[in-house]
């Protein structure tokens, strides 16, 4: 995203946060988006989180094989890595692919088929109507998905570790319950909030300014996922630097 695009993005956000024409309708659309972003992504996030947790446990166990390192460290490392980095970031990148491309395609198609022009002619603030409910749904549902991801990833680590014999159930449970710092949850939720905003607003921007036809909508969709992923990783670094 160059500076011109960044400026246009900020101007679009300014239009997004104008006072809604009728809050009741926006709220209805917001719940539909929450269903799409949140409920519609539970399965995907559950599968990915469980497997990542399991794989993480095996890899940590492989790298920390030593008589001087207690096995409980496997659970501790898995817990902190999951909470601080894997659950928020991997979930966000996966959601950027699933939700970002859908948002960009939906808004882009509305643009090229003049549906956005139709909204404007009716006197409706089209950025507000189309994007605001998606952003609110993103910043509320992504943190919830990340919380779910944390539990499943740590649970997946338990399954992976115990089924393979890399760590005993008792050692793993001791590991994940020892020296737990609740602040890591705060950091993860701040990240999830920021990522939820990026996952919805960046693809919406890409879709909103599409010009052309089907090919351009597809290109905007690809660009939306790429730019979202890069922005997520950059913001991940910034938030981590600021909060830890």
């Amino acid at each position, binding site marked *: 995203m160059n500076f011109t695009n960044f400026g246009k993005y900020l101007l679009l956000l300014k239009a997004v946060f104008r006072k809604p024409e009728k809050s009741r309708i926006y709220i209805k659309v917001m719940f539909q988006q929450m269903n799409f972003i949140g409920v519609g992504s539970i399965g995907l996030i559950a599968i990915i989180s469980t497997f990542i947790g399991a794989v993480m446990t095996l890899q940590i166990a492989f790298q920390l094989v030593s008589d001087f390192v207690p096995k409980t460290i496997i659970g501790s490392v898995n817990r902190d890595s999951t909470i601080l980095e894997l659950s928020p970031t991997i979930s966000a990148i996966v959601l950027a692919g699933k939700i970002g491309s859908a948002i960009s395609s939906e808004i882009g198609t509305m643009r090229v088929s003049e549906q956005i022009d139709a909204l404007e002619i*009716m006197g409706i603030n089209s950025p507000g109507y189309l994007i605001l409910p998606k952003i609110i749904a993103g910043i509320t549902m992504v943190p919830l998905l990340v919380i779910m991801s944390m539990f499943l990833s740590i649970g997946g680590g338990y399954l992976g570790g115990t089924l393979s014999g890399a760590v005993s159930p008792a050692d793993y449970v001791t590991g994940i319950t020892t020296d737990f710092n609740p602040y890591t949850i705060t950091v993860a939720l701040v990240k999830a909030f920021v990522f939820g905003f990026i996952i919805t607003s960046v693809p919406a921007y890409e879709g909103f300014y599409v010009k052309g036809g089907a090919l351009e909508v597809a290109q905007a969709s690809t660009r939306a996922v790429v730019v979202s992923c890069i922005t997520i990783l950059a913001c991940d670094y910034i938030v981590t630097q600021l909060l830890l």
Partner: protein
Amino acid sequence: MIEIKDIHKSFGSNEVLKGISGRFEAGVTNLIIGGSGSGKTTLLKCMIGLHQPEQGSVQYDNREFTTMNFEEKIEIRKEIGMLFQGSALFDSMTVEENIMFPLNMFTDQSRKEKLERVNFCLERVNLEGKNKLFPAELSGGMKKRVGIARAIAMNPKYLFVDEPNSGLDPKTSIVIDELIKELTEEYNTTTIVVTHDMNSVMGIGDYILFLHEGKKFWEGSNKEIAHTDVQELNDFVFASRFMKAAKDKF
């Protein structure tokens, strides 16, 4: 009444509109005609605020539109109905929801009242009982008629229609043209139709503004159009063999 004065619009170095003026009265069907690339749709978009002209004014009943702020433009737009070339129906909504959408947004009517209005509009465009269909289930002509029903749902003072006959068979085109004319006269709306369909021109053109290469070349009615000596207009109107053969009978 809508009056435009000296409208100029460029895209980069390409000057599309070169000082267009005209006056579109209420209760009559006003047509903007011209060949492809003559600036018809750009002029329409300048009039409704989708494009900002570099120079000139657009007045809705003596209210200057081009210099209005966002909120003032929104108020004018609530008085506008528009039928787009591709109908621009919302894909995810049924016919009923499409027509009810502006009512939901801008009125405090009860659901029963809104439904009555939707059914009235559907009846007006001869689509009774099609409430629950989705746009993907409609033919091109039906989509246009739903587009018209949505455009008139809020009782607009100004009705804009962009290429109403594109992609339609001649019979359906005539139905749409007659519907536009009827609604214009019935509700005394200021109707502006952008078209290059000669059947529309001869059938419903009470006032016609002819554009050529971004300039106004002629204005008049469908009764006068056959008797003009403007070469560019004659080349446009009587381009087909049929129209050439018919010219002598006008």
